[in-house]
């Protein structure tokens, strides 16, 4: 099946977000297909989290439309979409243990109760946090909490998953392992993922397609198809080449924000 014939899961048409007078997202058009892994790259403050808040149904856009599985959001009859969202901050309930935090999301999903225990055990072990199953979130490190938040989003069989810089709080070794696991999970479950990141290499390694945004207020600067087959190797020279290519392209349009990052990269 080629990409074009796959059903559309998430579609934005002429999408704009403003806060009072200030414009956060100028205009976005995209169409994300079932099973696609789409990374979002854009300079800090360009409106990526704002965009996720709209395509998750949390916040109505100030202009344009969002369609989830061809049903329009934010109309009187529209049903809220079933999605997993890894917020930029973890948003766990501190008075519930890790397991209880996962169960509260499962209880509101359509996942049969009989399978919860096994699912929870599996996802926690994939994310290397099995030993914290009964811990209070306050006793976990930032990266451990973020992984619980990832587990919550993956557990509930969502139509699509939004992730807002989910690996940015992790050390590089753990992040590598999770990137690899994430690729595996997404391929096995054919998940549709929108993944915001500041790491261009991470985007190239994970994504089928990268939506490169402009400086804020965001527009689509380029809809970039990653020209690499799977499986990929994070240290592959071709990934570094694609990364360098993207950096070259965005250098001018991103302005100052980019010069800082390119010196690190």
């Amino acid at each position: 099946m080629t990409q074009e014939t796959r059903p559309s899961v998430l579609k934005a048409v002429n999408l704009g977000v403003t806060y009072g007078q200030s414009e956060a997202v100028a205009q976005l058009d995209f169409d994300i297909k079932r099973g696609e892994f789409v990374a979002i790259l854009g300079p800090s403050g360009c409106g990526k989290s704002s965009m996720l808040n709209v395509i998750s149904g949390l916040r109505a856009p100030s202009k344009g439309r969002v369609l989830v599985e061809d049903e329009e959001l934010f109309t009187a009859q529209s049903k809220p979409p079933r999605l997993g969202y890894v917020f930029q901050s973890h948003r766990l309930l501190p008075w519930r243990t890790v397991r209880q935090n996962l169960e509260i999301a499962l209880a509101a999903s359509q996942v049969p109760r009989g399978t919860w225990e096994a699912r929870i055990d599996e996802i926690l072990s994939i994310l290397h946090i099995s030993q914290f199953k009964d811990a209070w979130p306050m006793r976990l490190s930032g990266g451990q909490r973020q992984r619980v938040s990832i587990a919550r989003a993956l557990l509930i069989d969502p139509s699509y998953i939004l992730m807002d810089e989910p690996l940015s709080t992790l050390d590089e070794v753990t992040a590598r392992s999770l990137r690899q696991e994430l690729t595996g999970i997404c391929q096995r479950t054919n998940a549709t993922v929108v993944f915001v990141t500041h790491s261009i290499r991470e985007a190239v390694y994970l994504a089928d397609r990268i939506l490169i945004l402009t400086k804020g207020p965001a527009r689509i600067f380029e809809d970039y198809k990653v020209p690499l087959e799977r499986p990929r190797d994070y240290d592959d020279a071709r990934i570094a080449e694609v990364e360098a290519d993207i950096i070259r392209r965005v250098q001018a349009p991103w302005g100052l924000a980019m010069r800082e990052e390119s010196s690190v990269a």
Partner: protein
Amino acid sequence: MPDLPLSNPIGFVRKRDWIAVVPARVLSGAIALISILLIWHIMSIAFRPWVPTIDATLMAMGRALQNHSFWDDFFLTLGRVLASFAAASIVGAVLGLIIGLNEKAEAFFQPLLALALAVPDPVYIIFSILAVGTGEMAGFLALTIAVAPFVTNIVRSNVHARDKSLDEMAQIYHLPRSVRLRSVLIPQLMPALLTAMRFSFALSWKLVVVVEAIGQPDGIGASIFNSFRLLRMREVAAVAIIFIIAMQLLERGVLGRVEKKLLRWRD
């Protein structure tokens, strides 16, 4: 300051070693108790016979503890305290939730709440007695009306200050309304709610005693007032002290334990 033994800090600390054995809390408690007893002693000399002496009061306390009618009054008053405390906490918390979550309710109740908080407690007591007579109901009513607004106010402001990002999480994961209330909102309010309950408990028992003194034939407040009319100051002091200690034990023991259990998820 050449005389300070800075050159020999270890020797300096040595002398104070025995203090380290006693926990700081116990130590400061003991100092407070000794100071109170000292002031009491001085006052009992200065204001004789209006301030009873310590030993006379202790003896009166011993007599009261062995006296059936004291315990009758005690449990009667305790029942009144618990009833009005429970009513005020429940009414206040529910009202606070409603006002905090609903703008229309807030617009309606906010001026009333401001007024309720401004009215001095004796006014409630007098009006309740005027409205329903000096029966059991008057005290209960006055107390509930006097204490509930404090709880309402604390709950309301904490509902406003809640973490909205958790509401968004609840929305994304389709948590049902009941779960949002029970597992997302109320646990957030719990620390404030417990503070409000401590406060309302303290207010309740103090007001119950006043109400009993003004309008009831029985209970600790009435018994204190009767002793006062007969100028038996040691009985006044003895009964008051026993009751205060009992209420403190209840507050710290029961409410403190509940607090520990409910807030165990915190650091």
